[in-house]
């Protein structure tokens, strides 16, 4: 039983890692508290649903379409809202409130189009795999495998290109970054596109398993932020460790108490980290004054 919970936790953790990466990519580059992530996540799931269910695309094509369109949507938020604000040199809190606005618009737009009720993609009984005592369903297998492939791909991309370094440089000083001959606009666009891809991946994988409604975004966003804080801001690998730890922790809470208290415990952990180790597991202390 215990092992089963751990495995479930790890698989949930992979999903958290995906959305945490989606949030952290933007946050680490632009320092925008990108709340609209919640809406992009929902949008990804609904594009997937629309392509698979209404247009009757094959599953893989629907998935790719969802990734693509969420990336485009994410780029649109940058072009239409964040970039103009950035040009006006607005404060980050202004961007965050605008982000709340984007989230409200998108989520309620989706609710207008698709309705507020829960949608299910596939309600047939899922095939299961048994390894000794442990049972893993087919969607869970898919979540783990696709999730890991995507994360590996991101690492390969960051490892074989200078992009990771560029992103960190941009975060430190955008003006200096531009003077050094890089293009702030393009780098930000790539970051937003990547963020959209990871959000959509997380949401499609989740939605295929448990369905969706327009309001699933906020809890996911919150878990993603918690995962990012636990790992430590500023690094992508921290998101993965944070996501996995959070997934396992929540599974253990369910195992030990009940699912009702999952959120409360998650946030207690968040508060503990914020107060006692705000730099996260991987971060280091910085000079303050």
């Amino acid at each position, binding site marked *: 039983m215990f092992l089963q919970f751990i495995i479930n936790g790890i698989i949930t953790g992979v999903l958290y890692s995906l959305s945490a990466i989606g949030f952290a990519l933007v946050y680490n580059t632009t320092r925008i508290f990108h709340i609209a992530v919640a809406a992009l996540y929902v949008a990804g799931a609904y594009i997937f649903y629309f392509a698979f269910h209404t247009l009757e695309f094959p599953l893989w094509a629907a998935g790719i379409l969802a990734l693509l369109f969420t990336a485009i949507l994410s780029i649109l938020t940058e072009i239409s809202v964040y970039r103009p604000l950035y040009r006006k040199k607005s404060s980050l809190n202004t961007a965050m409130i605008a982000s709340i606005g984007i989230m*409200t618009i998108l989520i309620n737009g989706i*609710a207008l189009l698709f309705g507020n009720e829960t949608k299910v993609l596939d309600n047939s009984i899922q095939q299961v795999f048994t390894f000794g005592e442990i049972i893993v369903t087919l969607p869970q297998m898919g979540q783990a495998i696709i999730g890991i492939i995507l994360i590996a791909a991101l690492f390969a991309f960051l490892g074989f290109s200078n992009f990771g370094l560029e992103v960190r440089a941009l975060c430190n000083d955008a003006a200096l970054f531009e003077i050094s001959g890089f293009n702030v606009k393009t780098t930000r666009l790539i970051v937003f596109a990547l963020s959209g891809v990871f959000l959509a991946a997380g949401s499609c994988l989740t939605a295929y398993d448990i369905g969706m409604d327009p309001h699933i975004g*906020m809890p996911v966003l919150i878990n993603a932020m918690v995962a990012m804080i636990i790992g430590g801001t500023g690094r992508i690998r921290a998101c993965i460790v944070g996501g996995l730890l959070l997934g396992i922790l929540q599974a253990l809470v369910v195992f030990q108490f009940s699912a009702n208290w999952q*959120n*409360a415990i998650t*946030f207690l952990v968040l508060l503990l980290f914020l107060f006692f180790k*705000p730099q996260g597991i991987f971060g280091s202390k910085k000079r303050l004054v």
Partner: protein
Amino acid sequence: MEYILHIVIMLNIYILLVLSANLPVGLANLLSICQAAFYGIGAYFSAYFLLQWNLPFVVVALIVMCLTGLCSLVVSFASVKLKGDYFVLATLAFQMIVFTILYNWTEVTRGPYGISGIPSVKLFGIISLSGIYGYFALTTVLSLIVILLFGNLKKSPFGRVLTAIRSDELTVLSIGRNPARFKNYAFFISAAFSGLAGLLYASYISYIDPTSFTLDESIFILTALFIGGIGNIKGPVFGALVVVVLPEILRFVGLPDAMAANLRQIIYGLILVLLMYFKPQGLMGELKIKN
């Protein structure tokens, strides 16, 4: 007529909420997303005191305000320890924890079923304030009092220190003021008046359940604040007016109810995004939002 009175009562309650959010968020620039948590804590404390004890309104109000204010110490502690986004996250965590407790601690809060049959408040201990007219009078008087109280706050020496904290905490420390103390005051007052709003709401509607005090409600209050504008009195009052009256206007236009809720939210979202670009200080505000 009663319909209009109901709207005015809700408007008065939201004026309390938005004005009290303006104190930490607008003046001291401590972006806290947990106003609804204090609103809820106030409402649940009021439900307990109104159901179990037979106390006059002023006494209940004072008790509820003090208790809710004490709960704010958690948040002000966080505001001292944490900066920027980390503080926002901590308040979000606080909001979620309060909601989870209200929802899951069924022995005390009756969880998702909510608490019903909350009696009306008793003015001066005898006259039970019943009916919509009584509440109209009570909430209007209270919101006017609060507007007067908060109106002077920004110009007062206390407001001066808060505005200084907004700009630069190190400078405030270096001139011998402890920002932590002033943050405590600001959050205490803010939470206490949100608690008062909770009391009015609980006793007026006579039924409360956790879904009125969610994160979405907190975001809604902030939306009202930012639409109206931060830093002065006009702004928050106007913001409350917009968010309370706009849905009613939409209803008159004749949209189906199912669509109206979503459409209204979309309008708020649009207003927020446009305001942040064109007028980041809000429609009537004085101060710009800063980091």
